[in-house]
């Protein structure tokens, strides 16, 4: 039913450079995974170095107020979510995942030129280019994840996503460092940051264009699902998808976003705002080191189980944040737990979705689940911010902790009864 990993088509032309490797490495590290991982590495360098300077750029150079910045943030996230759905849908309909993802990467790369122009010329606004960047990011995310899943044996999906997320996070860590290095060499020269960011983005586009291959249709010809509505109903009718969406949505509705966790730590430790990037780096290190191990566990015991129990790590974060004085060690523990939580959930839920959703609507399915999670987190952030303001910091965390615990119990029951069972792979169906 699924193509064998020994099928040369899975490994790219001429047997690939990985044919010599043995064991799990050769099964997981397909050419597409390596190409997409490196593409994400470079484009994350590109986008994170841009994002690291954007608040400064918008507020100092373009005179944005904080309120304006808040509105911009909302538009920015909204654009991303909307185009994620569009990207997934288009890629499935045309059965062109690589092409759609590459287009998304190319759009983001092009926006850097606009930002360079905006930094050099007072008359060129930056905001349209920033929104266009999110259009590109939205479009590419689901087709890229779908392509990873289509290039990997179902037994190794979570590990493959772990590898991809590790490379992605490594880029995300390097980006801000590079931005600060550029600004140290040329103070105030935002154009130089955007030029370097453009270069990283172009490298990413070059890698996906040259090395990634379409992985659809040829393997298992089926009539592709064409209509927009029939596409979504195909996703939703797949056994196991609705429970997954419900569980993911409800769990993420009790997820305090990382920005809030950093803010909680910063408030508790009175850390200078300048050191904020260090908090991010602490989480990223844990994430990038643990993504592959958690992926392997998920491949062994079932992705849904790991996804749901990964939220126990988030419970750990809440406990540390709510009841410790958040000294140095407690803060580090919270950051590491947060990184581990991302490692146990982010790629794993993509893997689980990939296991469930048929190939013709794979990208749409991934888009749907990730958008549900994003919307859940946005709601959670809004509510949590309001609670923090009205009842206080620790109390708000405790309320979220209780909510998450209740939801987790329900999710655990659902997992035990159904979530891992509709797996097409016989292994977890027992």
């Amino acid at each position, binding site marked *: 039913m699924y193509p064998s990993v020994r099928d040369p088509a899975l490994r790219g032309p001429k047997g690939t450079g990985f044919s010599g490797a043995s064991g799990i490495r050769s099964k997981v590290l397909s050419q597409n995974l390596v190409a997409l991982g490196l593409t994400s590495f470079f484009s994350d360098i590109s986008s994170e170095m841009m994002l690291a300077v954007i608040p400064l750029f918008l507020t100092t*150079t373009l005179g944005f107020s904080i309120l304006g910045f808040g509105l911009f943030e909302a538009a920015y996230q909204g654009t991303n979510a909307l185009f994620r759905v569009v990207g997934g849908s288009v890629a499935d309909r045309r059965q062109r995942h690589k092409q759609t993802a590459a287009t998304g990467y190319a759009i983001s790369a092009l926006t850097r030129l606009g930002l360079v122009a905006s930094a050099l010329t007072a008359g060129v606004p930056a905001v349209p280019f920033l929104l266009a960047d999110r259009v590109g990011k939205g479009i590419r995310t689901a087709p890229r994840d779908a392509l990873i899943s289509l290039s990997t044996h179902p037994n190794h999906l979570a590990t493959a996503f772990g590898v991809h997320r590790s490379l992605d996070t490594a880029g995300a860590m390097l980006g801000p460092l590079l931005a600060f290095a550029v600004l140290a060499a040329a103070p105030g020269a935002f154009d130089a940051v955007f030029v370097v960011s453009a270069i990283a983005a172009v490298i990413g586009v070059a890698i996906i264009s040259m090395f990634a291959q379409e992985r659809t249709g040829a393997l298992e010809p089926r009539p592709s699902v064409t209509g927009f509505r029939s596409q979504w109903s195909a996703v939703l009718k797949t056994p196991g998808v609705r429970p997954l969406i419900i569980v993911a949505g409800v769990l993420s509705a009790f997820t305090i976003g990382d920005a809030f966790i950093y803010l909680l730590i910063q408030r508790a430790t009175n850390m200078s705002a300048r050191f904020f990037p260090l908090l991010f780096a602490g989480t990223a290190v844990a994430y990038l080191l643990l993504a592959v191990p958690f992926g392997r566990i998920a491949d062994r015991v079932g992705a849904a189980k790991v996804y749901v129990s990964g939220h126990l790590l988030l419970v750990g974060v809440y406990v540390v944040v709510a009841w410790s004085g958040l000294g140095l060690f407690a803060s580090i523990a919270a950051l590491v737990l947060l990184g581990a939580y991302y490692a146990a959930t982010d790629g794993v839920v993509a893997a689980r979705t990939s296991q469930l959703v048929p190939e013709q609507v794979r990208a749409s399915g991934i888009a749907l689940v990730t958008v549900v999670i994003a919307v859940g987190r946005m709601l959670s952030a809004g509510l949590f911010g309001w609670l923090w303001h009205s009842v206080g910091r620790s109390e708000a965390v405790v309320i979220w902790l209780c909510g998450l615990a209740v939801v987790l119990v329900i999710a655990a029951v659902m997992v035990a009864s159904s979530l891992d069972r509709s797996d097409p792979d016989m292994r977890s169906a027992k």
Partner: protein
Amino acid sequence: MNRSGVAGIIGVVLVLSLGGVAYVAWASNRVDDEIATREARALEAIENFSTHQDESGPASTAEREAGEASDQGEAAPVEPSPIEPGAVVGINRVPGDDYGRVVVLHADGTRQLLERRCERLHIAAQLGICVSREESFGLATFTARYLDAADTELREVRNFPSQLPSRARVSPSGTLVSTTAFVTGTSYADIGGEAETLAIVDEADASTNLRGLTQFEVLSRDDRYQGVVGEYWGVSFVDEDQFWVTGFFGEEPEVLEGSVSRGVLTPSGLAGSCPSVSPDGSTLVFKRLQDDGEGFDLVAANLDSGTTWLLGESRSVDDQVEWLDDDTILYALHTNSVEEGGAAVAQPQFDIWSLDIAEGSEPQLFLPAADSPAAIRE
């Protein structure tokens, strides 16, 4: 993944990376050039100002001679002279290598640069407070340093870690110090939103006894002070105990009176921020948000009669003013207006202006290319 493809992509990466390095080098050069141009312009402005003062001002012979002496002084650096009463100390804002150095305008009109660098500075009696910035790899750290004002180079006495500084004050006899720093955010325009400030007071001669103003008790039964932790910034000392400060409790900034020894704050009923009390304690000058919500007006309040009036400065002043004497204030303004990008560029430029507090007075340029003024008194 064939070999030529891999070699090709490595080639592309190398070429593009070199291009990036070249662009950053070019940008770095360009920034240096821009700063050199602005430095030349600022030095020219200082030159023009002193010539203009000599021609039109009622400058005495002594001042003129001092001006000439300072020209020679620039050619061959001289030992700094002691900072004596009548001098005004500030921070040099001529772009370039001297940006951020302490500048002394001696009573005889000589402009002199010290080695010490600060972001914000104040001096009274024998004590100076200097919040300085140290930077490595784009990460800035800030240190509050206590300075010996009797030393010609403002020797450091001791220091403690600080954050992005905005206000600093020493009490008239030099026994208390207060600094305000941004814990988050960078602008007072964002107070109540993202920005959060920390105002502290310290007994200068004790071993560090830092107290945040949030630990002070607000003496008022008014509802708006109950159950809220205020934000405080911009302390101005009346004497070695009493002070004025800005408080924010969720609506708009207001001026409060405080006592260090009693640890209390009393609302004054004045709406505004960054108060500064005159040396004789009779007048308070503070900032008030303009009706359009964009900039700040300077307002004076007579503390005996309670009358308030608008000062004769039409430009927006975002500074805690300093008193030159009981009738004249000093404050810094961007050299280029904010609309022209005065706030955006690296090494932003400021000038110190003086203004008589009588209604209808016109501001005068007092010290070009400097900010953070502190008048040295007897």
